[in-house]
């Protein structure tokens, strides 16, 4: 029993990183209205931003969070300018393919600039273990979960208590209606995209701290997991996307517990398929009709 509990804790920790990636992803998809394939690279660049920041100013987590958020938000602006801005009224597949191209560009540029080797990110958080025997939390797990919860809370406040947040939600629900209400849709989408990417960047930093390494090709699988979690949550619903990420993490780890780590993705995607068959809209409650 202890053992399953400790595996569930591992799952929650991994799931909360997935959750943060998925939150970023669904913010992007929500405000832009298009699926993106650059999220993995945005996550990777966030990790690298924190890596170089830690080298410059020492292991300060708060500065790391800010740096990775800003760097990825900036990449978000770049992605927006290239992939979305000119194609709002064009068929959807154009900007979709554009995001795939941008993702390749960013990944290969990163390999050239940062080099192909794994980079170590050791001792940002000291190895400390709280608990008894196998059951317990490590310090880095606590920090990961705490960061994810506090960022989600800030995002919740931003969306529900600020004018910009309300504008973002309006754009996410209906661009035409929002424009008629006098909202600058282009600028608001740009902001939303940058916030989503920034959150992805912080998730990248957490991934790098948790796994203690980073590499230019880490974005591929991360982006895929972010996408799956967001789909579980119904793509644009933020709390459901977070729940989706958490579930995915727990299901994967419990799956590994009863079988083999080689089957990680099998459990993740079978779970995704089952949920989509039973509840095609994901965890999100479907209210009203979407245009």
């Amino acid at each position, binding site marked *: 029993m202890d053992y399953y509990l400790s595996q569930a804790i591992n799952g929650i920790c991994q799931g909360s990183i997935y959750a943060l990636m998925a939150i970023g992803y669904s913010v992007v998809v929500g405000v832009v209205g298009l699926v993106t394939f650059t999220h993995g690279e945005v996550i990777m660049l966030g990790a690298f931003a924190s890596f170089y920041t830690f080298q410059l100013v020492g292991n300060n987590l708060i500065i790391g969070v800010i740096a990775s958020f800003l760097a990825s938000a900036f990449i978000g602006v770049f992605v927006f300018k290239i992939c979305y801005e000119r194609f709002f009224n064009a068929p959807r597949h154009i900007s979709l393919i554009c995001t795939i191209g941008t993702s390749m560009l960013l990944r290969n540029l990163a390999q050239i600039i940062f080099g192909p080797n794994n980079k170590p990110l050791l001792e940002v958080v000291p190895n400390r273990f709280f608990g008894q025997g196998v059951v317990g939390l490590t310090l880095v797990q606590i920090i990961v979960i705490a960061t994810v919860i506090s960022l989600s809370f800030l995002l919740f406040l931003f969306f529900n208590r600020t004018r910009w947040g309300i504008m973002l939600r309006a754009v996410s629900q209906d661009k035409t209606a929002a424009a008629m209400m006098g909202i600058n849709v282009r600028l608001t989408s740009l902001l939303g995209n940058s916030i989503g990417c920034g959150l992805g960047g912080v998730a990248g930093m957490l991934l790098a701290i948790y796994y203690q390494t980073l590499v230019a*090709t880490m974005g591929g699988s991360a982006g895929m997991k972010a996408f799956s979690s967001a789909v579980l949550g119904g793509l644009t619903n933020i709390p459901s996307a977070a729940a989706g990420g958490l579930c995915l993490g727990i299901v994967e780890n419990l799956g590994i*517990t009863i079988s083999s780590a080689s089957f990680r993705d099998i459990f993740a995607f079978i779970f995704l398929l089952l949920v989509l068959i039973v509840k095609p809209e994901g965890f999100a409650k479907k209210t009203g009709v979407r245009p």
Partner: protein
Amino acid sequence: MKRKLMGMALLIAMIAFAGVSAFAAPKTYRIGVMAPITGTNAEYGKGFQIAMKMAADEINAKGDIKLELIFKDSKGDPKESADIARQYADDPSIMAILGDFTSSCCMAAAPIVDEAGLVLLSPTASNPNYAGMSKYAFSIMGRQDGEAPFFATYLLKKYAGAKNVGLIWVNSDWGKSAHDNFVAQAKKEGLNIVADVNYLADEKDFSSAIAKLRREKPDHIVIMDQGLVPTIINQIAQAGWTDVRITTLGPGTSEQILNLSKKNAEGLLLTTPFFIDDNNRTAKAWADRFAQIAGFFPTVHPACAYDTVYLIAAAIRNSGDKVTRESIRENLQNLKGFVGLTGPIQFNPAGDIFRKYLIVAVENGKFVRKTDYDYAK
């Protein structure tokens, strides 16, 4: 005056002769290389590139034959290796292929070179099934049915005194063969395998696999992988699991382990067929030259890569006037008396070799050789 004239004449004669020998320019042979220059195993791919270029430059400087190496990045992906092998096979100017790094990549390319009749000489593939796949497939790493049993008997049982062992291994062609050969020998030696977990090559999160191992309380863990070994070592340390000795089969004396795991790697035990230290002068000089270019110290893998270039050169020289893809294969298979940087190399009928192994430990952030080649007696 007369003497001066004589000297001049001699000089002119020498220049003229040099001119003549320059006329009979050495023939250039194009050799295709595939290696994981990017991706998880990039350290090894980069090492291949540098070591092979060093060897080719030395051979070209000698001047009897000229080798031109063409490098292609297989990213450690068997699909890419198969594609690259096909490209090389279709290019009639390519005389042989050197590479790839992993057994999976080599095994994906083996049927293609078999069909094309083109030698595929891998510095590092050690799956015992690989070289037997084709008479054109060769490897000089030594085989997993040599190293894995050595690891079980001599490193774990004799050297470390292990009783209960936990295994964590990459589920690939190489990992599977390392694992199966290890388990077979461990059973013979009476080692108790208490936990056995595997994962796929692009895994990042080992927390649940580690929890699984930890539950069974092994006294030694064996990590069977190359590029991911530092990640696993770090995650074991992160989980606060300290009452276990970590050993690893596969990465050799990889600097990545020291760089990426730092003090988490302290006490790590591993095996290698080749070790560079101050006692081994030629190897040390070679390693220093390598490090100057590469910026990191070589493992056994680039040293093997270096030897493969000399092997191909020897096979070309032995082919005489008419060098073909087939003549290179024949002369490689029948090569006798070759001594490379990593020791004597003579292929068995399958096209690979058995090696002897050393036990190495990480102490104070450095690899330290613990046993000699005669430990297995």
